[in-house]
């Protein structure tokens, strides 16, 4: 009488164990690449590209720079013609919103909303590393020209 429940519990446990082991393995194989091609992500990518084209001259002349928190900032507003200053500031602000949305959306698309912070710091490093020479980057509180 006593052997039957112990055996069935052990069998259940074995099945459970196999399931538990196979799940993380499958997850690990999937995460060799992050998903970056959902409609939401592609929408943000094209928004970022359009806004970049408008900001490009100001990134090149140093009016706008990249910050080490994965965003952008107006570095020297005096380098922007007065008539365009407000507009450039608005684009920088809307670009920063799109960037934060990108980091959140990427984390969500890959099933880990809690990764948004790490994705943001990965992007922060790569935006700065990939920025062409002449652009300004804000690192540890001070602007440097690449």
């Amino acid at each position: 009488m006593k052997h039957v429940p112990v055996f069935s519990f052990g069998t259940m446990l074995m099945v459970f164990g196999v399931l538990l082991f196979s799940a993380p393995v499958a997850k690990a194989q999937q995460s060799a690449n992050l998903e970056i091609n959902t409609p939401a992500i592609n929408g943000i990518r094209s928004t970022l590209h359009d806004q970049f084209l408008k900001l490009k001259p100001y990134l090149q002349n140093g009016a706008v720079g990249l910050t080490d928190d994965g965003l952008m900032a107006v570095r020297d507003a005096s380098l922007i013609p007065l008539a365009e200053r407000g507009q450039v500031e608005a684009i920088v602000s809307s670009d920063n919103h799109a960037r934060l949305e990108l980091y959140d959306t990427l984390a969500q698309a890959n099933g880990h909303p809690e990764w948004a912070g790490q994705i943001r710091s990965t992007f922060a490093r790569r935006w700065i590393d990939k920025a062409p020479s002449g652009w300004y980057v804000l690192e540890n509180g001070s602007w440097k020209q690449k």
Partner: protein
Amino acid sequence: MSMAKWIQMASVVSLLLLLSACVTINIYFPAAAAKKAADRIIDDVWQLKPHTPVKSVPPASPQSSSGQ
């Protein structure tokens, strides 16, 4: 303690260990994959590298025009 009880307790402990291992693996952040994803998106957003840099300047024509 009976054999059955002992096995049951050991099973529960190993189940907990398995569960914690599973959670640890799933929380791990794929840093290399994230870097690759970032690079692809940044290249796409900036498009700074010209795609056809060779075609724009044929080597023969500028020489002949500047030489004469």
